[in-house]
């Protein structure tokens, strides 16, 4: 079975951060690459190897892509603030944006056992994030600011060892 992290409400627990870097991007898919480079570098600083850093980049990409595609209209992009903080056990990534309301708790995991022609394709992004990250927190403030916080620990195997266990039927 896969080890899926559940999305928990509220901010993450207080963690002493030894370093934090912040990137602000305009909510456009063209900026996914710079966001990815940013977080991959932070992940390596935190002690992750190339493969681990790539997975963390993917998790961030999924959250940011979601915000860009569903939260903002093409003609009126807002901004997304990404913070990457190093702590002694790993990395904390936070994203903040004020796009359209989005309830990640309502996103169902995709039905991967149904033939391709019979199902809607969706929910893959959040599913990927749940597989990669160890802890995920989401809060929506009264001023519509939506904050995702995700923790990846150096000693975690999530998203690597269990991936092979997927046993999906052929479409």
């Amino acid at each position, binding site marked *: 079975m896969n080890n899926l992290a559940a999305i928990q409400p509220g901010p993450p627990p207080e963690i002493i951060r030894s370093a934090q870097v912040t990137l602000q991007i305009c909510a456009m898919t063209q900026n*996914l690459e710079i966001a990815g480079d940013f977080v991959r570098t932070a992940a390596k600083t935190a002690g992750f190897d190339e493969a681990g850093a790539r997975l963390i980049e993917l998790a961030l*990409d999924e959250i940011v892509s979601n915000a860009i595609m569903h939260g903002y209209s093409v003609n009126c992009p807002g901004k997304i603030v990404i913070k990457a903080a190093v702590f002694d056990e790993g990395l904390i990534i936070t994203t903040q944006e004020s796009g359209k309301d989005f309830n990640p708790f309502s996103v169902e995991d995709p039905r991967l056992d149904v033939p391709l022609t019979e199902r809607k394709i969706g929910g893959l992004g959040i599913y990927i994030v749940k597989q990669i990250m160890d802890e995920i927190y989401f809060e929506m403030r009264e001023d519509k600011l939506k904050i995702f916080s995700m923790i990846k620990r150096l000693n975690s195997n999530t998203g690597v060892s269990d991936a092979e266990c997927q046993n999906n039927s052929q479409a």
Partner: protein
Amino acid sequence: MLNVRITHKHNYILITLSGRFDAYGAGIFTGQTADLEEGSKFWIVDMTEADYLSSAGIKALLEADKSLQMKKGKMAVYGISENLMRIIQISGTKNIFKIVPTIDEAVKLL
């Protein structure tokens, strides 16, 4: 950024992807392959030079595959690196794609 190269072969269309297949790349892929079904409903996607993949890229491929299947066509994908295969595994879609190592095997699948 994703680069999409399209080659019309005798009985299939070869789509060669290079670069970053993220949400930005997904828009480029979908835009450039929009009218291809009129040419052939059998596509082979070469991912040898694709070095990044997110769920948006996977979704774009699955949607193309689904659309072809609905019209009795087929899509096969080859040249996926170890890194990208890991992402496909994590997304749980590995067995949904027709993934093969080489173009020869892809041609046989069509």
